[in-house]
């Protein structure tokens, strides 16, 4: 499988990259880790005339804190997320999610920015970023802007990114110390996309849920933020009856496709099972 011909560009600054993407328009695609785009190009499902390799933009690498926020450069790889002590302390959920993504070789090159910006409903990070209340920092010809992950996803492979824009960083408000977290992912084998997955971050106070946020992966055209389910759980002791009600509310917002991972009905139920497990594990970690 040989991709179509293209012209290769390797800019050394964000301004240069954005300039190229703007000037070349629809014919150009940014290249991050390439493990979504290159397979698409080999199948000729993508035939960009120009590839703008972002690997030379060293500003887009690394994990740092900014006040209460953790800021992760878009070109930071899954392997680097797993190895980051700062993240292990502040947002341990990310290590758990990254280690479920693809396999070691893919994690060495696959980036957080690519995972969140591609708009693939099978990707794991988008629902996690909705769960965490993350914000994406975006650069375009007109300058910089920010958009909440919860407002970013509009359809399969369809996001709020305008032509010529790239995601430069992911900004995550650090959950409070002592929070519970879990990412439960049902998959057929290592490296597979989720049949269904659920991300949970919660805090407990006096045996009751003080705050809770839930994201669901690959059970709709976009990642889902299960706001109503979390609202039901707030103030509860995570008793079985309340969890059941919340799971029903989460299942109600899913609309999974039928594919080799299962029927829509099965995948909806599995989203509920993953949520039930994630809630229990998150609680056990508080």
């Amino acid at each position, binding site marked *: *499988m*040989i*991709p*179509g*011909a*293209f*012209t*290769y560009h*390797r800019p050394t600054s964000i301004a240069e990259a954005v300039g190229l993407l703007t000037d070349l328009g629809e014919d150009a695609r940014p*290249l991050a880790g*390439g*493990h979504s785009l*290159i*397979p698409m*190009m*080999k199948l000729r499902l993508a035939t960009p005339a120009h*590839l703008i*390799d972002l*690997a030379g933009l060293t500003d887009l690498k690394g994990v740092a804190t900014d006040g209460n926020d953790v800021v992760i450069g878009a070109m930071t790889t899954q*392997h680097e997320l797993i190895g980051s002590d700062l993240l292990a302390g502040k947002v341990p959920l990310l290590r758990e999610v990254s280690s479920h993504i*693809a*396999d*070691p*070789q*893919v994690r*060495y*090159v696959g980036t957080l920015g690519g995972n969140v910006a591609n708009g693939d409903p099978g990707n794991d990070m988008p629902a996690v970023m909705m769960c965490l209340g993350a914000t994406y920092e975006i650069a375009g010809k007109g300058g910089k802007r920010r958009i909440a992950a919860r407002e970013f996803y509009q359809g399969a492979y369809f996001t709020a990114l305008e032509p010529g824009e790239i995601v430069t960083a992911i900004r995550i408000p650090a959950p409070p110390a002592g929070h519970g977290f879990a990412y439960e992912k049902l998959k057929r084998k*290592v*490296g597979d996309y989720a049949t269904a997955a659920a991300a949970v971050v919660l805090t407990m106070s006096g045996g009751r849920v003080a705050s809770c946020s839930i994201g669901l992966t690959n059970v709709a055209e976009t990642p889902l933020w299960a706001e109503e389910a979390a609202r039901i759980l707030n103030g509860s002791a995570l008793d079985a009856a309340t969890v059941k009600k919340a799971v029903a509310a989460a299942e109600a917002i899913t609309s999974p496709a039928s594919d080799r991972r299962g029927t829509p009905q099965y995948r909806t139920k599995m989203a509920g099972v993953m949520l039930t497990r994630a809630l229990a594990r998150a609680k056990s970690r508080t």
Partner: protein
Amino acid sequence: MAKSQISLTVNGKTVEALVEPRTLLIHFLREQLMFTGPHIGCETSHCGACTVDLDGKSVKSCTVFAVQANGSDVRTIEGMAAADGSLHVLQEAFREMHGLQCGFCTPGMITRAYRLLQENPSPSEDEIRMGISGNLCRCTGYQNIVKAIQYAAAKISGVPFREAAE
């Protein structure tokens, strides 16, 4: 389409070449440099037969363009044995533990295991299995591959290798 000039190190030697931007690293290695150790298996970034070491990372060379490797240090299975032909400890381990049958996945397995042991010189069995989860073998059932990596890890650490009871 204009070709790009690239310069990289492959198995310790500097290589200068002209490549089409769309040339995948695996095709460059196999067809221009004649390093046919890394294999083309699935071509869809699943099987890991094309695994090479690129700047200290295991990568699937079917999913990297040769131009992306410009300036990099690449190691393939051909770069494992010593200059005098003596086997790398992992090659020896795969032979001693019968870690292969047809051998198609072996170059990728050994190259991947090399990086795994660089990062984690004494991995648990679970860590080995997860560490090679991006490499498929359709013959062995993995048992002897895992044993081979345990053998190599023990030898590198200078401790006697004890085969786990089955």
